[in-house]
């Protein structure tokens, strides 16, 4: 379950099922107990009724048992006819234990079952409390009472009245199926309602998620969540988040101030250093060793300036404040100009370079100096990582709504494990990638290139195979840029 809403619904449903189940079990047990009590009352009253009939008949007729033609004692037919209508299992024995009468239900049993029943009647002494007996193997389970019949002149032994428990179970089975149906019919809407309630309770959270998600960078950090009037959990959560965002905003503001201050505080001394070096280096009659030292210093000052500029650019980009100065430019001019530089670099490195631009203008509104920086970065990079004798190809092309710039080389390539990191700041592949002699750069070039492409609404992608070469593809959209 991914959402709190799902989990709440699940818990709610589980609780509902549990309480319904307890309710159903209690209901079932109560109903079962009542049902069996009814059954027992029935057999008692059947026994009472039979005993009453016999007592009544004795008073009216006297003799109720007479020998039949074979000399066995039987119940006189008039009384037997009356007893025929008594339901369930009814058995009557004579004083000597012989069976005088069996009701239709009892007569319907198989012979073996009937033997078990008459054995039970013969062995069990009379009592008032109902007993239970199961007739093996597949006969009915009976609740029964056995009692003596003193008011009938001592002509009878015992009276057995019993009823099949199935008649009690029948009602219970109906109850169980009713419960199951009600369970299913009731549970589905209950779960749906539970889901809806959970959704309603969590709606403010969803709203907060949307609002927080819209706060993406330094430009939107001044926004705050709407705090509900009620100071419930949601209200407190919104307040807490707002406080956190205020702290974040303050840190961002501090960072912004620091960025501006640092740029000033660091660039001013750099200006002074630069000025001194420049004055000294352009003075006539400086010894050559001094000039060489000054030249090295100047290089380092420039390196530091570039690093500082890159850091500031990226810091502003993070804040969403690094703005572009866009004008319509024919990208061919930028690529051609960078191409001449690329050709010089390639010449020095012993690498063949090919620059291809389309015959028709490719006009986009871009920041000229930034795009120039992007193109030069990629070309310089390609030349740097291509061994002597290799080749680099730069191609500018349009494709419907897109403008594609590809810089491909036949160089040493990038290991697949390194590919996801090459646009990271300060990231550098292991030293094998840097050619001897060249001091590695600060590792910000590709990070800046990526920012430049994306700030123009474009993308930059890389494909590479170690030992085969690398291709960078920059895509600008005509509509955006």
């Amino acid at each position: 379950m991914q959402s709190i809403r799902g989990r709440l619904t699940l818990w709610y449903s589980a609780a509902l099922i549990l309480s319904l189940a307890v309710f159903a079990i209690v209901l079932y047990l109560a109903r079962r107990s009542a049902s069996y009590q009814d059954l027992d009352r029935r057999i008692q009253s059947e026994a009472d009724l039979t005993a009453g009939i016999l007592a009544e008949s004795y008073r009216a007729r006297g003799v109720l048992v007479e020998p039949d033609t074979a000399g066995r004692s039987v119940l006189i037919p008039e009384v037997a006819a009356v007893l025929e209508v008594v339901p369930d299992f009814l058995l009557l024995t004579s004083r000597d234990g012989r069976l005088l009468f069996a009701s239709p239900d009892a007569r319907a049993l198989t012979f073996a079952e009937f033997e078990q029943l008459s054995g039970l009647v013969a062995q069990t002494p009379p009592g008032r409390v109902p007993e239970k007996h199961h007739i093996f193997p597949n006969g009915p389970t009976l609740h029964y009472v056995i009692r003596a019949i003193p008011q009938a002149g001592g002509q009878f032994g015992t009276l057995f009245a019993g009823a099949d428990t199935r008649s009690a179970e029948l009602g219970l089975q109906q109850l169980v199926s009713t419960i199951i149906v009600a369970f299913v019919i009731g549970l589905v809407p209950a779960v749906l309602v539970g889901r809806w309630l959970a959704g309603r309770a969590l709606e403010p959270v969803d709203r907060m998620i949307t609002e927080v998600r819209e706060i993406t960078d330094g430009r939107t950090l001044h926004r705050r969540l709407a705090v509900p009037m009620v100071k419930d959990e949601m209200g407190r959560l919104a307040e807490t988040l707002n406080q956190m965002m205020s702290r974040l905003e303050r840190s961002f503001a501090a960072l912004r101030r620091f960025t501006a201050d640092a740029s000033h505080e660091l660039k001013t001394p750099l200006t002074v250093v630069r000025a001194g070096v420049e004055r000294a280096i352009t003075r006539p009659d400086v010894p050559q060793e001094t000039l060489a030292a000054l030249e090295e210093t100047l290089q380092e000052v420039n390196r530091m300036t570039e690093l500082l500029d890159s850091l500031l650019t990226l810091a502003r980009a993070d804040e969403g404040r690094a703005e572009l100065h866009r004008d319509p430019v024919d990208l061919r001019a930028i690529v051609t100009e960078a191409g001449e530089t690329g050709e010089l670099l390639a010449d020095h490195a012993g690498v063949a370079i090919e620059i291809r631009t389309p015959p028709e203008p490719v006009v986009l509104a871009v920041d000229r100096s930034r795009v120039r920086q992007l193109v030069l970065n990629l070309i310089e990079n390609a030349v740097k990582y291509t061994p002597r004798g290799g080749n680099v190809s730069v191609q500018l092309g349009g494709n419907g709504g897109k403008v594609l710039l590809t810089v491909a080389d036949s160089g040493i390539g990038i290991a697949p494990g390194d590919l996801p990191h090459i646009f990271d700041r300060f990231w550098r592949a292991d030293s094998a990638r840097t050619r001897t002699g060249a001091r590695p750069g600060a590792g910000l070039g590709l990070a800046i290139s990526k920012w430049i492409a994306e700030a123009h609404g474009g993308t930059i992608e890389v494909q590479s195979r170690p030992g085969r070469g690398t291709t960078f593809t920059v895509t600008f959209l005509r509509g955006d840029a």
Partner: protein
Amino acid sequence: MKILVVEDDKTVGEYVRRGLDEAGYHAELVGDGDEGLRLATGGHFDLLVLDLRLPKLSGIDVLRTLRDRGNGLPVLVLTAQDAVDFKVQALRMGADDYVTKPFAFEELLARVEALGRRPKAITPPVLKVADLALDTGSRAVTRGGRAIELTPKEYAVLEYLMRHQGRVMSRTLITEYAWDYHFDPGTNIVDVVITRLRKKIDHGREPKLIHTVRGVGYVVRP
């Protein structure tokens, strides 16, 4: 031409002032915005070089006040902030151009020249070294009367060296002038351009005009 430099950092300000003086201008330096605004409105100056971060009155405020008063004095802004928005802000306020710190003095000078509409006589349109001539107007290069075809970068490097003929120009300075882009110091792109320039200019001719100063850079002299 009189130039007012408003810069609170004494070393930078002094450097700019002296540099401008050496280039034949009359420069004066003040250290805060109030003073700067007072002098700038006095009408004694032809150009204002203005730092954006100043004590008392910021550079932006000086600029705004100046323009609000209808003063059209050309203003060149010095800024440490590299972001485009600051430059754009300054330009909107009426600055005529800007230079980002740390700047090459050459660049500052070029912009001052452009803004001051300096008389052409001071920068001769045709630079000459022996029989090599470079026309900065038409960008035509000839040696011994024969035209030489140069690519844009070759032209930029040669022009820079000829402007400072007789002086050793370091690789870094040449790169900055011709590219305005920081290359990996290991690439030595200038060497490639120089090799090509030598083929076109010095090959089979005497005297050789382009000379190497090991570990530093190049110099053009007869």
